[in-house]
């Protein structure tokens, strides 16, 4: 090559083409997604909890997506009753789809584990509930107080005593309460919203395995 402009224009053209195909085109034809009626907006507390989820990097071990049942076993394993669709994520900024399942998928964790006390104990010490767990302990989201220092509004977490420092009680901070609230809100079990742009998995429909027919 001897022409600089050819090199530069060519470089611009290739990345421009990819941008049109993967970013601009989807903007125009697909991602005009309406929020499904059954998907509630996050409350202020849940948004605060989502922010803790982002801040502490939960996304590096937990996905939030049920993959296509045509070639995965995500539904059989119980991560959800159907594959998730774009409409399920309209309120998520930034997206928290995740790329790892070092821990379980969480998009329907509120359905599986609706008990806030379970989550609070689990955040404080995951191994108090699952001996095999390698999830970090989030002790820094709690206060370990002397019983006499407890305030009337303190939310005491009933962690099994062998995990608590001698003579202390574990109190949840507002941050971890918000996180719990957010995690419990994670449910995408309503039927697939049959609105424009929400379902875009046509290649599998012809086999009669369409997710739209699933419960």
């Amino acid at each position: 090559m001897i022409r600089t402009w050819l090199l530069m224009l060519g470089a611009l053209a290739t990345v421009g083409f990819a941008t049109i195909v993967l970013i601009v085109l989807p903007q125009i034809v697909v991602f005009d997604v309406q929020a499904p009626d059954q998907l509630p907006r996050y409350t202020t507390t849940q948004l605060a909890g989502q922010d803790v989820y982002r801040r502490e990097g939960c996304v590096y071990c937990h996905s939030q997506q049920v993959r296509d049942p045509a070639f995965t076993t995500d539904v059989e394993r119980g991560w959800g009753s159907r594959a998730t669709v774009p409409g399920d994520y309209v309120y998520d900024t930034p997206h928290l789809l995740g790329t790892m399942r070092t821990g379980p998928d969480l998009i329907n964790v509120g359905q599986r584990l609706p008990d806030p006390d379970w989550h609070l104990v689990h955040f404080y010490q995951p191994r108090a509930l699952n001996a095999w767990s390698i999830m970090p302990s989030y002790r820094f989201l709690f206060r370990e107080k002397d019983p006499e220092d407890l305030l009337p509004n303190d939310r005491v977490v009933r962690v099994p005593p062998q995990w608590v420092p001698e003579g202390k009680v574990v109190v949840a901070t507002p941050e971890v309460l918000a996180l719990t609230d957010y995690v419990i809100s994670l449910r995408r079990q309503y039927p697939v919203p049959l609105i424009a742009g929400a379902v875009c998995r046509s290649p599998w429909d012809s086999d009669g395995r369409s997710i739209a027919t699933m419960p």
Partner: protein
Amino acid sequence: MPGATIPPGDGGGAATLPPREDVDIRLRADESSRVPAMFCFITALGWLLIGSLLGEIASVKMHMPDLWTNAGWLTFGRVRPAHLNTMIYGWASLAMIGVSLWLLPRLVHTALRLPWLALLGGALWNLGMVIGFVSILAGYHDGIEWLEMPRYLADPLFVIGGGMIGISLLVTLAAREVKHLYVSVWYVMASYVWFPIIFLIGNWPTFTGVESAAANWFYAHNALGLWLTAICLGAIYYFIPKVLGRPIYSYQLSLLGFWTLAFFYSLNGMHHLVGGPLPTWMITTSIVASALMIIPVLAVAVNHHMTMVGRFRALRYSPTLRFIVFGAVAYTAVSLQGMFTALREVNRITHFTHWTIAHAHVGVYGFVTFVMFGSMYYIFPRVLRREWPSASLIRWHFWLVAIGLGMYVIPLTVFGVLQGLALLDPAVPFSESVTRSLPGLWARSVAGVILSTGHIVFVYHCWWMVRGARAERRIPQFHEARPVLYEPPDDSITPVAASRRASV
């Protein structure tokens, strides 16, 4: 064309020294880029050490989850992105910028223009890195993988700093004194066009929900393909012919490899979301583009291999070549692995497992980091005008990082597959997928110590050299191993004087 003036020696025929004027061109080029390039290299080495420490902490925390749980900034979910960002933007990018600044003036036969602007750009880049690093550990980050550093605080510094470096390079290119642009110039200059575009798209603030996922992986994969890969391939294309004194095998293959890489790699991103809640056609487009990557990968692999053929003994002689060829082989390996991983049949098993992490390290370590080490082994003596002080430290460095990488990648890949098979079988409880992957996680922590030791050896060696301790010997290290590339034509030139000129 680099090296074309040095006929192949292979220990047989007597080689001639490069003409005086060629040497002068390189001396002037190296002199002009010396300050900004060395600034980027030295700061990159600092980030390498910090990133190694963070990687080790993150790795250990995966199998010792109750370690250091009292401080938020030390939690796994912050240390891990801090490690990734430090390695990508601190270590790899700054080292690549150093290589670009040093390489381009040599290839276009003129001095680097606006070196002060490039230096300022490098300083701003470092400032962005410091701010981004602290922000991630403090929890003030964007939460998007590969783009965690705060959008309005750190990222503008990367854009401005990178832009300054890009301007310096573009002005240099415009002032070129060669007609033909060597293949390394294509890769290096194109990547400075690509990076700001993809970085802007990745950081575009209006994306929500799944569009933000699409933009996320569009960026992250292109950061690998159009930034890290492009500059490192440019370096390989320079150093293999340069060290061997033999032109690259085929110009046509270089051309094919470059344009198909530009076209296919940029469409690969959605294969990170296989099975996910995106339109199937987007994901399929990326899978098809990933499979088509066989064309640039084979074109580059054949081109490099055919240039090396018959000269593999030179690997003993040149530490640069040893690291660069390792990197080139790793590039072929990681690309083929990536193509297969993108296929739905494979991805259903390996997606969401440690396989992906091992794969990423074959790429960013085996390929990018090895190529950067190799480049530094070549560049430092020429820029600093002194030889590496110790042959054994070079050997230690190579074997520590080579063995460490093997110990990292092989167990994590194997146990990643076991983890994936457990996840795929609904009859197997989830806990099984965790316990099955544990030996791989332990092996990684051991490997991390070995890799970090290699880094410390290398940085110590660089420090020893930069500090200017008088090297005991003035001829290149491993000269005695087998001087396949150069033999003195007669007694009138001593090996010392000859190697000085030949090595410029």
